Each structure stands twice: as C-alpha cells, then as structure tokens.
C-alpha cells in the first residue's frame, strides 16, 4: 500500500514535470519599432541558419542566439530549427570551413537577449515565453 502511494506520487511528479516542460514555449522577439508583425517557423529558421539575411520586407536582419546549454536554445533548436545541438554544429561546420557563413552572435541568457533586442530594430532573438516583457515585440510563439 505504502509503495503504491509512493509510486503514484512519483508518477504524479513525473506527469507534472512532463506537462510543465511540454508547456514551456519559445517566443521569437524583435524591437517594437520593427514593422514585422509575425514570422513562420520556416522564416525564422531561414534567418537563424543564415539562409537569408533579410526580414520578409527586405530589411536587414541580424539574428542573435543564446549560448549552448540554455534551455531556451535547446527548445528553439528543437521546435524552430528542428535539429539537435550536434546537427546544428554539423550544419555550421560545413559553412564555416567553406567560407559560406558563420553562426549568429550569442548572448548569455534571456535577460541579456531582451536588453539587446530592445535597443536595435535590426536584431531578432528568442526567449522563453515567461521571460518576455513590453520592451520587445513577439513575432512567433512556439506550440
């Protein structure tokens, strides 16, 4: 009986964990003055993988990444870039050593990201949904 209670509590905890991690969302953010209202995950992916250097309206876009190991980065990679960290590394290594491109500049965390994005209309970045504030504009929310 005791074991069962213990098990059910563990299960309950695991379920909670699963639900909470499933609910964690990523938002892509730009400066409030940026005329872009929304981006698709494919458009965002093109920008962050260096396949295009401009927003859909033709304006220059400079993507900003978060450092490896950050939850936001892992989620962004999985949900938007649809690659894991190794695949991203392989992707960029092909471009770096052929002179075709280099990965975006990185910031330490969501706070620094928001600070940076709120200062420059050319920048585009991402944070976890609960980190976002009024100083930036959300153009994409992950499922």
């Amino acid at each position: 009986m005791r074991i069962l209670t213990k098990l059910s509590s563990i299960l309950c905890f695991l379920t909670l964990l699963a639900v909470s991690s499933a609910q964690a969302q990523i938002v892509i953010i730009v400066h409030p003055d940026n005329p872009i209202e929304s981006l698709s995950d494919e458009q965002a992916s093109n920008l962050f993988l260096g396949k295009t250097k401009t927003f859909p309206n033709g304006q220059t876009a400079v993507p900003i990444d978060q450092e490896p190991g950050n939850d936001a980065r892992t989620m962004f990679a999985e949900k938007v870039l649809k690659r894991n960290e190794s695949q991203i590394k392989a992707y960029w290594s092909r471009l770096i050593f052929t002179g075709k491109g280099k990965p975006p500049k990185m910031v330490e965390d969501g706070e620094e990201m928001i600070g940076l994005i709120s200062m420059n209309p050319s920048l585009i970045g991402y944070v976890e949904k609960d980190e976002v504030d009024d100083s930036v504009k959300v153009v994409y929310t992950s499922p």
Partner: protein
Amino acid sequence: MKRNFFVSFIVCLGLSLALPSYGATNEELEQDIKKLEKQLKKLKKKSDKRYKKLKSSIDELSSRLEINGFATASLAKADEAAGAPNGITDNGWSTQSDDIMGLQMSFMMNEKASYTIQMVSKHASDNHAVRTEWSYFAYQINNKLRFRAGRIRIPYYMLSESVEVGYSYNWVRPPTELYNLSSNNAEMMDLTYQHSFGLFNTTSRLWVGRQADIQNLGGGLEMIFTSDNIVGFTFDVNKGPYSGHFGALYVPKVSNTFSGSEEGQQVTALGGAAENLLQTARAAALDVDPMLAAFSGVIAAGEAADISYSLAGAGETTTDDIFASVDGVARITEGREIQHINSETYYVNIGGAYDNGTLQIMGEFTRFDIENTLLQGLEGGYLAAAYRVSDKWTPFITYSTTRTHNNRRERAVTNSLTEQLTAAYAAQYGALVADPTVQGIAAGMAAATSDPIWTPEYLVGATAGTIAAVTSGIFESVVSGFQIKSNTKTIGVRYDLMPGVAFKAQLDASEAEDGFVSAGGLGGPGNPDKVKVLSFAIDTVF
C-alpha cells in the same frame, strides 16, 4: 585579595601612562591609512581602467579574429591488398588513412572585409605536410552580393568544398567513386549572389580560376598539371527540408607535364610490354624491321579504313594518338619529360537532398568529359539515406557507382586493332618463312636441340603468336586500363558523443564489374575484383 588589587592597579597605571602616547601614534596611523586608501583607490581606478581597456581590446580582437578547426582520427582495414582507397590494405589496421587536421583563421578587417586562411594536414596522401588549402580575401558588398579572391576549393561536386570536414557529414569518407580527386584548389575569384524568393532561398555563384598542381604518381614519377581560365557556375536552392544543387565548370586546356627518374623505369606496365615485344623479337633473332613494318601496316590500314573513335564522347582520337601515347609512356620510363596537352574538359553536377532533421536522403549525379585524349570521360553518382533513430545514433546506407563513357565502342576498336595487326603480320608470314636468316636460325635451333619442331614456320608462327598476344595486351592496357565501371555499397552508423564530437563506423563493399577496373585499383590483371573496407573515425570540430 589585596595583592590582586595591587597588581591590577599597577597594570592600570601602566596602561594609563602608556595610552596617551599610543593615542597620538594612532591618529597619525589613521591619517596614513587614509592616505594609503586614497592612493589605493587611485591605483585601483587606474588598473580598472587599464583592465577595461585591455579587456575591450581583447574582446575586440577576439570578435575580429575567429579561429576554428577540425580533425579526423581514423582506423581502417581492407580484406584485400589492393583496391581500397587512401592506401588501406589487408596488412593490419591502417591508422592514418583518413586522418586529417585543419585550422582556419579568419580576420575581420571591418564589417564587410575579411581574410581567411585554412591550413590542412592530410596523413594518407601527404606525409603530415601542412598545406594552405584556402587563403582568400572576402568582401561582402551588400546583403546579397559577396566577392572573394584567393586560393579556394573548386566546387567540382556538391560536397567538394567541405569534403575534408568529416564532422559535417555522416560517412567516414564520402563515396570514393566520386570524391577521389586529389587536386582541388585553384587561384580564383568568385561572385556569390544570395536571394530569397519567398521561402525559396537561392545562392548563385560564378567563378574564374587557374590551377597548378604537382601530383606524385609514385616510383619517382611526378605530374605537374596546369589549367588556366577555368570558368564555373553553381546554383543552390533550398526550401525547408529540400535542397537542390547544380554545378558546371569548363576547363579550356589542361597541360600535364610528366617527369620521371631512372627508378621510374619499372613503373609502367605499358613500357614493359613494349620492351617485351622488342626483346621477344630480338630473342628470336628476328629483324625488328618487318615487325615495325607490320605495325606501320596496321596504322596505315587503320587510317585507310578510317578507324578513329571517340574516347570522350565528343572528341575523335585516331590510332596515331594511341601510338603517340605509347611512345609518351615509354619516354617516361626513360626519365624524360613529356608534355601532353588535353583540350577541353567539362564537369556537370546535379544533386539534391531532403533533410527534416530525422530522415536524410541525398543524391548526386555527375559527368565529366575530356576531349581528344586517351583519358576518358566519367559519369557517376550516389544515393544515400540516413535515419536519426535517437539523439545520438544515425545509421546510414549508400550506393555509389561510376563508369567511363563509351566502353563498348572502345572494346570493339581494341579487338579490331588486334585482329588487323595479326592479319598484317600474317601477310608478312610467307616472306619471313622464306627469309634466309630465319631459315638459318631454325636450322641452327633444330641442330642444337635435336628437335625437329624447329622449322622456319614454327619459329615465325611462335613469334607471331607472341606478338599478337603482346600487342593485344598493349591495346588492352592502353584502352581497358582506363575503362572504369565500379560500384560501392556502404552501410554505417554515426554516433554523436557530444556536440562537436562524432564517432563513425562504416563498411564499404566495392567491386569492379566484369572486364572493368575501378578508379581505386580493382580489376585488371593481378588485382582483386572486390574489396571490403571496414573504417572507424572520430570527427571533431572546434
């Protein structure tokens, strides 16, 4: 009790006497300390300033200078002594076959201009020598246009430029049916245009270049080849998981300068065969002239019959070219230099890939033509599939194949030439049998061996047989020596230990089809037709 009081009184007195003087020193000290603190603050400010300055200049430098590297450590073994790539044999584990180390430094002069140098050391082909494989200036004109000039990899195939960065693909090595060119770099200028049509991202690149390289052919033989005014174009398109590639390049002229040493004498089977032919004739004490006349007869007959055939699809090669080539090879063995000028070379390459992050399918087809030479055009390609079963494991399979053009036609020509040579020799047969020298040798041999088999007919017939066989061998090695038709089946797995480090295992089964050879040395006399290669690699990028 009393005594105790007395002692404490004395101590108190002593202290009260001592204290005023101590108090004065304290004030001075405090002032000193304040002074020192001020100085320290000043110093700290100064050093902070210095530190900040230093830090910002280091930051600036580090953001301007980028250093990246890649390395592959490998282990491989074949089940045959020959036919495997990169010098892999059945003689123990090869620890250097695919080893490679690369270091790239990129210095940003400003936001638009940069200079990049990449130095690579390859163990298998180059004995640890470090070579500057890339060295170029790049200028980003605007968001879409970029100009580069310097030493840059030639984009022969879809993955040519990144072929050395093992971490960027799943294989231990890309299909050697295609990726076996050892000379890949050119001094070039290129202009790249990147443009997106909605979600379609395109990259077009136009380049012109010049290539000069020395290839060590082994046995003291070297080939220096140069090609000027190479023009190339590539077009890449991508949308989501789909991508396509088209590449073409045109080389107006390739010139190969061979240089050999005395040790190179044994290198060429062809030279040996020619030597054999003459020795056989001399051993039989035959006058070589009729034989050479027979050759000339064949050449004349060939020309009269207008026997000329295409080796590369478009250019016409005459029988003269074959003999010129035999002559050329013979000259190499004599340690001279020859210069062989080919005419135009074309490469066309089409590739495609699907990669949704879990399933990857990739294929490529390429064809190249060289006109007016004994070197033949090639066509080949591969189809590869990989499936990421977990975060770490990605098994993959590949089928690749390559072949020279027009094999059947060339074979018919070889047979016809051998037949005609035999016929031409037979035409001289009667005259040779009646020749007093031949009759004398036959009589001498019969007397010496007491064997009545030694008649003039036998002597001439045996020599004719030898000559036909050797001649046929020469033609075979001239033409079939370049006849390639081979394939490789590959199965393997990539294991991502951590981002930046991947472990790979791969099994290749290669075969040269019946009567053909492979570029890697399968098929042909004395060589195996099939080879299996087991390879392991650890690939890193940093």
